[in-house]
């Protein structure tokens, strides 16, 4: 079998495409430019979150009809419309219950990770527009507030502390997104208004949660009560001055193993414009002694002040949640060999039956 000739240019181009440092020669420059143009165009192809919902539902519940591609002849105009109607109907039948089911999911329930993943997909799909991202992140804050409210109503107290952490994280990220939108000159007033409203609502629900923790008539263990108190205090701190907590938000919690790394911009924490709440709305001081430092002593930069003991108490189920951080293992698959016969390189598993 004839072997390909070694070619330095091929290797250099390959290194360039992998992002390894290579001197950009005259020969490589147009190729790199073409590769960049292709990458940029491909990056614009984003999967619609609604479609992602449909695909996941099809796999998880096996109830969706697979949208079949034409196998016998191309449909004419009437057939196409009829098929389109059938697809829309099938999608509606599947999508509506799935979306409703996952939207109603609470922390600790089986559909909850699905709900969080959908939120991440929705955010990822609007990241090209800072103002849309801000709106989407505000919606996430609203979802966390709603969950807290329902957890209290259903007396699911053991989920309160992690949900408070998730709320705190969501507020920090939403605030950073609003600030980013403003910095980039986008119209962020609407997003800011929405965020202010949701933050106001959060304070009301938080007061409710604080009452739960104080109540002696409820069946709460000491550890749960303490965790709730601490989480309430921290969240109140963030709600009072959301912009200043950006840096600490990412390190304090890892709300869900499904969530990608926090995308809050570290620099936005120092922005004075992020003071959405006046200082008169000081947070209610909790009874616990584990309350974080008062806001007057909070450093203005993004320096983090981790509290390891608090973290472990607050997010017991999020340990190991950093597994999805996308560690680069270039060339991790060591089975491919440079000069082996293609037949020897065939994978062990046939992809399709």
């Amino acid at each position, binding site marked *: 079998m004839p072997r390909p000739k070694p070619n330095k240019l091929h290797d250099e181009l390959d290194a360039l495409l992998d992002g390894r440092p290579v001197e950009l020669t005259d020969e490589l420059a147009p*190729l790199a430019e073409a590769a960049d143009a292709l990458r940029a165009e491909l990056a614009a192809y984003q999967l619609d979150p609604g*479609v992602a919902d449909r*695909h996941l539902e099809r*796999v998880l519940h096996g109830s969706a009809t697979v949208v079949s591609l034409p196998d016998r002849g191309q449909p004419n105009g009437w057939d196409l419309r009829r098929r389109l109607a059938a697809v829309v109907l099938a999608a509606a039948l599947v999508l509506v219950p799935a979306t409703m089911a996952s939207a109603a999911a609470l922390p600790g329930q089986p559909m909850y990770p*699905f709900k969080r993943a959908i939120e991440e997909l929705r955010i990822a799909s609007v990241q090209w527009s800072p103002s849309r991202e801000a709106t989407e992140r505000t919606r996430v804050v609203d979802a966390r507030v709603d969950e807290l409210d329902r957890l209290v109503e259903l007396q699911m107290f053991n989920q309160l502390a992690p949900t408070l952490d998730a709320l705190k994280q969501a507020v920090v990220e939403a605030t950073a997104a609003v600030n980013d939108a403003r910095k980039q000159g986008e119209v962020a007033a609407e997003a800011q208004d929405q965020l202010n409203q949701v933050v106001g609502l959060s304070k009301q629900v938080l007061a409710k949660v604080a009452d739960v923790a104080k109540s002696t008539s409820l069946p709460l263990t000491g550890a749960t009560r303490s965790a709730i108190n601490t989480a309430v205090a921290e969240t109140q701190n963030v709600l009072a001055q959301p912009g200043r907590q950006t840096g600490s938000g990412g390190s304090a919690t890892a709300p869900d193993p499904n969530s990608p790394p926090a995308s809050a911009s570290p620099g936005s924490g120092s922005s004075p414009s992020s003071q959405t709440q006046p200082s008169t709305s000081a947070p209610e001081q909790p009874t616990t002694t584990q309350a974080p430092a008062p806001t007057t002593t909070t450093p203005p930069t993004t320096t983090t002040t981790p509290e390891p003991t608090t973290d472990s108490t607050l997010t017991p189920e999020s340990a190991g949640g950093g597994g999805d951080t996308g560690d680069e293992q270039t060339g991790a698959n060591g089975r491919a060999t440079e000069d082996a016969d293609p037949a020897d390189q065939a994978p062990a*598993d046939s*992809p399709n039956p």
Partner: protein
Amino acid sequence: MLGFGGEREAVSKVGLTAADLVAARRREPAAVTRVYTAYAPALFRFFMAAVGDRHQAEDLTGTTFVSAIESLPRFRGPIEALGGWLFQIARHDLYDHRRKQSRSRIEPLEDNLNEAARMAGADDPEELALDRVDADRVVAAMRQLSDDQREVLLLRMAGGFTAPEVAEILGKTTGAVKALQHRGLASLARVLGLRSPEQPQERPYPSPDPGRLTSQEEEER
């Protein structure tokens, strides 16, 4: 780097673990969602660039993912090989799709163009064509490459695979993949009007018939 024996600690470059793989085989919602979130965007980009139609690309992405999850109990490789395996299924589905398309009856062009324009939200086919020329200039230019070149570039750029990984997916040598990506990009640069010193204009490459290989490619195989 871990092989088959070290599955427990292995993490793929998209952040999936061996535990995710085990859980996805059991169709646990969280794990299936993680696998989907990790690979569906890349699969969709691959299909979009290959078929040039959003609805078809969405359907192909869904079909591939469903078959992958259904076949997952038969996948015995390490977690790092999951992406390559998924894209092998994707290629298989793409070939299937193309075969079915090629058998299709010929419909009045006007009907198809009007339908496509309507589905894309354009007023008429002309507007749709102009929109697409602007938005998909590079991907459209890729249609002038040979099938092999196009596939290698898509797996590299849309799938995010390294040359050895692409070689394994396609059953070629790494050297052949590097050569194909080089010539593919050179042709692309030329079609896009970028300067390409490697290949003078008079060289009859790529082949006018993408299905046919040039002698040089044939040699590399």
